Each structure stands twice: as structure tokens, then as C-alpha cells.
């Protein structure tokens, strides 16, 4: 607020926006922050300017396609949120799961997103823990090795890696465990 000593230039200053708003908000009027009521269109002031400017229709209308006007297009925020962030979330964050191996002193973590399918995943696990997983078949599980890759799913059950489609696996796998020895053999027999 201007003190008595000032010339009170603020009060007579020509600017866009409601009198009494601070310099900050006046400067920020071309950006569309969620709180800001100012539209980020090149014509900064009220609509009368827009329609009169656009009435000179021999010229191209201003390129609005990328400008984000608050509340435009009129789509419910629920809908907007469900379509957009999912994409970027999925792109940015990986699906990191813990991997334990029976007998190993500490656990590891891997990002399931970087693999395209089971063969790649198994190769990565074999490299990481220095073991060989054996041949996978739907009937018999992993044959020819005392190591069996298993995972805990959403329901808390321990499942054999490889039974379900890859996308389903990545969406429900919570952690991996490479079982060894007699426990592993028991799992291989379960249909």
C-alpha cells in the first residue's frame, strides 16, 4: 500500500487487472497458473478486445492451440486427470520391485518396465544373482535347476514367474523371490 509520502504512482498506473492487485499478479498475467483468473491468450485483457481483434478476419486468428486458458476446454477435472497424468506417470516412473534370493545376504531392486518380456527378465535375474533358472514349461514349471523364480501377487500369494501374460504380471507383481532347493521343487510340482 502506498504511503502518504509516495506520489502514489501505483494508483494512477495503467495496468491490466483489478486495481489493488499487486505487481506480481499484474506481471504474471500471461501465465496460466491454476489460481490465476487471467487468461493466457495473447490479447491480455477482456474479451471485447478478443472479439474485435478477431473480427478482422482477414488475418489469421492468434495461435491459441497451445495456450492454456483456465477452465478451457470445459472438461470435468476428473476426466482431465484420468486421461493425462496416467500417461506421464507411466512414462516417468518405473515399476521397481524387490528381488530376494534364498541365501543371499541382501536384496536387490529391479525395474520391470525396462523389460519387454519374461526371457529378458530371467536373463537379468540370472546375471544379477549368478544362477541359471532352467527351462520353463507350463506343465512342469522350471526344469533342470534348483532355482525357481517366483513372485508375490496382489492377493499375497506366491506364484511361479511365467504363467500369466507379461502385462498382467507387471501390473500385479509386488516382489520377486528366487527360491532354492527343496522348497523350490515343491512349487514346481503344483499345477
Amino acid at each position, binding site marked *: 500500500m502506498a504511503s502518504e509520502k509516495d506520489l502514489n504512482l501505483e494508483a494512477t498506473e495503467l495496468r491490466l487487472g483489478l486495481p489493488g492487485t499487486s505487481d506480481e499478479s499484474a506481471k504474471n498475467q500471461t501465465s496460466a497458473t491454476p489460481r*490465476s*483468473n487471467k*487468461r493466457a491468450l495473447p490479447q491480455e485483457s477482456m474479451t471485447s478486445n478478443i*472479439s474485435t481483434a478477431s473480427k478482422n478476419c482477414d488475418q489469421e486468428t492468434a495461435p491459441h492451440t497451445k495456450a492454456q486458458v483456465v477452465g478451457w476446454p470445459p472438461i470435468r*477435472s476428473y476426466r482431465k486427470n484420468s486421461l493425462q497424468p496416467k500417461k506421464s506417470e507411466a512414462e516417468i516412473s518405473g515399476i521397481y520391485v524387490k528381488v530376494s534370493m534364498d541365501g543371499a545376504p541382501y536384496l536387490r531392486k529391479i525395474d520391470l518396465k525396462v523389460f519387454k518380456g519374461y526371457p529378458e527378465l530371467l536373463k537379468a535375474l540370472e546375471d544379477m544373482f549368478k544362477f541359471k533358472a532352467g527351462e520353463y514349461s507350463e506343465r512342469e514349471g522350471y526344469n533342470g535347476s534348483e532355482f525357481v523364480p517366483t513372485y508375490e501377487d496382489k492377493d499375497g500369494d506366491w506364484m511361479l514367474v511365467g504363467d500369466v501374460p507379461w502385462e*498382467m504380471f507387471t501390473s500385479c507383481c509386488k516382489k520377486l523371490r528366487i527360491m532354492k532347493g527343496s522348497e523350490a521343487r515343491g512349487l514346481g510340482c503344483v499345477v
Partner: protein
Amino acid sequence: MMNYFPDEVLEHVFDFITCHKDRNSVSLVCKSWHRIERYSRRRVFIGNCYSISPERLIARFPGVKSLTLKGKPHFADFNLVPYDWGGFVYPWIKVLAETGIGLEELRLKRMVVSDESLELLSKSFVNFQSLVLVSCDGFSADGLAAIAANCRFLRELDLQENEVDDHRGHWLSCFPESCTSLVSLNFACLKGEVNLGALERLVSRSPNLKSLRLNRSVPLDTLQKLLMRAPQLVDLGIGSYVHDPLSEASNKLKHAIQRCKSIMSLSGFLEVAPRCMSAIYPICGNLTTLNLSYAPGIHGNKLTKLIQHCRKLQRLWILDCIGDKGLGVVASTCKELQELRVFPSDPFGAGNDAVTEEGLVLVSAGCPKLNSLLYFCQQMTNAALITVAKNCPNFIRFRLCILDPVRPDPVTNQPLDEGFGAIVQSCKQLKRLSLSGLLTDQVFLYIGMYAEQLEMLSIAFAADSDKGMLYVLNGCKKLRKLEIRDCPFGNAALLEDVGKYETMRSLWMSSCEVTLGGCKTVAENMPSLNVEIINESGQTVFNLDEGQKVDKMYLYRTLVGHRKDAPESNQTYLKCRGDLTRSDHHEPSLNDMIKDMKLKNISGDDDFIISESNNFKLQSQLFEKEEAEIMILKWKRL
């Protein structure tokens, strides 16, 4: 000479009158009909929760069993209303509970619903059966758990597009084993995991379940099990639809789907592997409603192939990735189509697949029964709108959103006045209209002239002057809701006929030219309106100068004065007390009042509010007789 019917006979006749408008009209015929209707009314609709209080609702309709309430203004959907604006349901539930109302059904839209309210609701009404929440917020899974646990006869739990904080997923387990009454369960909007075992058991013990909409976390194998247990489903919302089409799981699913011969409505596919759509084909032939607007994963050939199987579709909601060509497929396949909604899949980009005027023209040519449209598109032409108007004169709802807010006709560079003008002139039953694109005052002249049945109008970035708004206010006699943003309408338009606002539910104006002084004038002259100012800059309104423009104004008719729960930034006005006791006040004559009623279209409203406000006058003046002697002759609609 007409004999009088006993009350019971009239009550029985009124049982057949279910539509809100008609019941409101019935209540205005005479004192006796008013009384009988009042006590026999079971379903009440309140379009603005601040227009009346729960106490007055109960005083008028003590037998109410079903209540529909709407809270925030429509533009709240687009983040134009502060989160703390209001619309709390708790006070309603509290009063209904305290007065011992036998509430059975509660339907809320754009209201703030706390967990506390849900818990109170669940414990207060023994016969509570149906909860429908649309675009609400404020609750978490804890509130849902209370509903599940305590509502012993729950038939319907329908959650549509709510922002829910569901940090815990156990609410489904809270349905007791004894709960077997579910008919409808929709939790598609919940983001968290649910207890799948509990879900399966719940569906198994719900033989009457007709509608089931799952959320994203429900995987395919659970879906398959649910379908096996509920082949009687009529409405299905699929959560996750990811499977390998060659797998055993996929075969099992196909088999389960084929058993569901009654499914007429399909939605969801919140996660989808599009190559699996063929499993759905067997049920497509029966579908009347298909909502793929949350399934961006289905597009291109897969989408059009799916639609080609849906010959009986009446309602279709899709994303604009369908493209104009895809809309052509809709036009040639879906001859029964009545409602089409095309949403943008990429609101801020210039999508190549997005739709244009061509797609709309194709649909209008192929689907003559089309009467309801919501269409987001890149561009529109006057010629296309004129063609659409000719092809489809039956529009009741026409909402067009051109993504670029002031885009003219790209072919002629003209505003879209003529196109929309053709729509309003041709569609004589039009009740709802949303405009976009470059528009001058001219379009509003057309609207005022032709849109005689218009009840709701949404305007953005349009018009040149106050004339635009005046054309609408003067011409549209049945207007109930007017919402305007970013238009050059100022005090002259606002103040021309303030009495008009009493015949409407509400008026919203944001980023327009109305000033504080203008708003104050309305408030001071109309005690029956609340005028609210919402200022974004955080400045309280009392510091503003009368000549300053307000950011947002929301005014609405009310019988109960200012609300007590408005946030600080949102001020309603004090009226001039003096106005209420004018010394030259005279009682209007009967003829004046009838004329007034006709002009104000009092009886043609869903909302009983206006009839309530005139109630006192009616009882004391208009109907001196207990019974109307010529009631049957007057009552043509029955």
C-alpha cells in the same frame, strides 16, 4: 356440476404423476390439491441446495423419501469455483435425521460429502436404499465403509466421477454377509485397490445385481469370475481388460461374457489391450449404451470394428481419436443413435485424429433420431451447422465446444452466428445449448427469437456488447440457468430486468464487465436473490470500489436468505432493509397474479421453489375456495 373426490382418490390419481414438473403444477391448482400433493410427495428435486433449507423442505413435504440435491455451480467442474465455496450435505442429513424422516434415497451432484456425513447417513435411516454421488468430493473409503456396513437394505451405491481419497481398500469387506439386496454397484471412479475376494463373495450373494461397474484395479480373472456369478447383469463397467487373446484366461472370459445375454450397457476399459476386443463382440449386438470415453487405448480399426457390431446403440460416448472416418462408421451402423458425446483425448494438443465438422455432418445424416450432442472438435463451419440443423430437428441438448475458443468458420472466416442460428430455428424443442467459436451479438438475437424452450445456456468468449445478453434475457421465457464467462456483458445488461432472475435458478458471470456497484444494485432490489462475489485475488470484496469489475458473480433465487457457510473470500450482500416495507405497497389483484404467474412460467419447473415462494400468496388470495370447482376442465395435461 363437479362432485368432489375424497382425498384418497386424488392421492391415488397423483401416484401416477411422477415427473417433478407435473407434481409442482398439480400443487398449484387449489388448496386441497396442494395439501394432498404435499403429503403424498415422495421424491423431491432441489436444483440448488442454497435455495431452501432442510427444515422448510420437511415442513412442506413431510413424507419425503427420495431427495436430489445439487450444490456447486456448473462451472465448478472446470475449476472456476474455489474448492471451499460450499455445497455441504452434512446439514441436510443432520436435519433429516433429527426430524425422523424415512429417507430411502439420496442423490447428490457437485456437493461436498464428508465421511462424517456418510456415517451419519448410514446410521440414521433404517430403510436407506440408494446413494448416488456424482462429481462430489470430500469423502474417502472410510465413508463408503460406513455405508456398506450399516445400510442393511442397500440396493444402490453409485459413484460417478467423484474425487475420492481412498487410502484404504477394505470398504468392500464391510458389506455384511446378510447384505444380499444390491441391485447396483458402481465404484469405477475409485483409484485404489479393492479386496477382490470380498467383491466376488458380494456379487455371489447378490442375485438382484443388475449394474456393476468396476474400477481399474479389478483384473481380468476376477472379471471373469464375477461374470460367471452374475450372468443377469444389464450394465457392466470393465476395469482392467488386459489379456493375451490366445490364452486360457481369454477363453474363459469369452465363455463368461457369452453367458451374459442381458447386458445392454457397457463402459470402462480403464486399462485395455485393444487386440482383445473380439471377446466382447458377442454382446455388442444388444448394446444400447456404450461408453468408451475413458479408454484411450481403443482406437483406430479396433474401435471402428467394435462399433460395427453395435447396431442397436442409442447412446455413445467416445474420444475424438475416433476421427471423422470413425464417425462415418457410427453414422452407417448406429441408426438408433439418440445421444452422442465426443470428448477430447488430448485437450491441449492439436490432435491429428481429432474430429471436425465433417464427422458431425456424417452422424447427423446417418442418425435421424439424434437428439442430444456434446461435441469437442477442432473446427466448425456455418455450412455444417446448417446441414446438421436440417438433418436433425429434434435436438434437445446441443453442446458444441470448439477447442480454440474464438475460432471462426475456417472456410469463410465468418463468425458462427448463422450456424447456431440455424440450430435454434430448426430445433424447436431445444432445452440446452452451449456455444463456442467466434460469435457476435447476432447469434444471441437468434437465440432470443427462436429458442423458446431453452432452459440452460452456456456462453464463453462471445458477443460484442450488452445487447447479446439482453436478447437472451428478453427472449428466452423458459430460461432457468445462464452461465457466462469472458463476455463483454456489463451492468446495463445485468440490471435491465432483475425480476427475471427470480424466475431462474441461477446466473453465473465471470470475467465479464459487471461491477461491484451493479451486483450491489441487484442485491438491494431483490430480497429473494443471493448475490455472491468470488474474488480470486484474495481481496475481500468490501475493499473494492463500486466501479471495479468483479471476477466472478453467482446469483440465485432463494427462500432462506444468505447462507452462513460461505468462505471469507466470497461475500453476499446485505439488503437495504427499507425496501421490504414500502409504504405504497398494495396487494396485487387476482388477475395480476395470474398474469404474473404465466409470464414467469411458475408451474413449468422441476424445482418446487418458485411455487413455495408464492405459496403464501396463493393460499391467501388466489384460492379462496377449498376446492376448485372446475378443476378437471382446467387440468388439460392430465
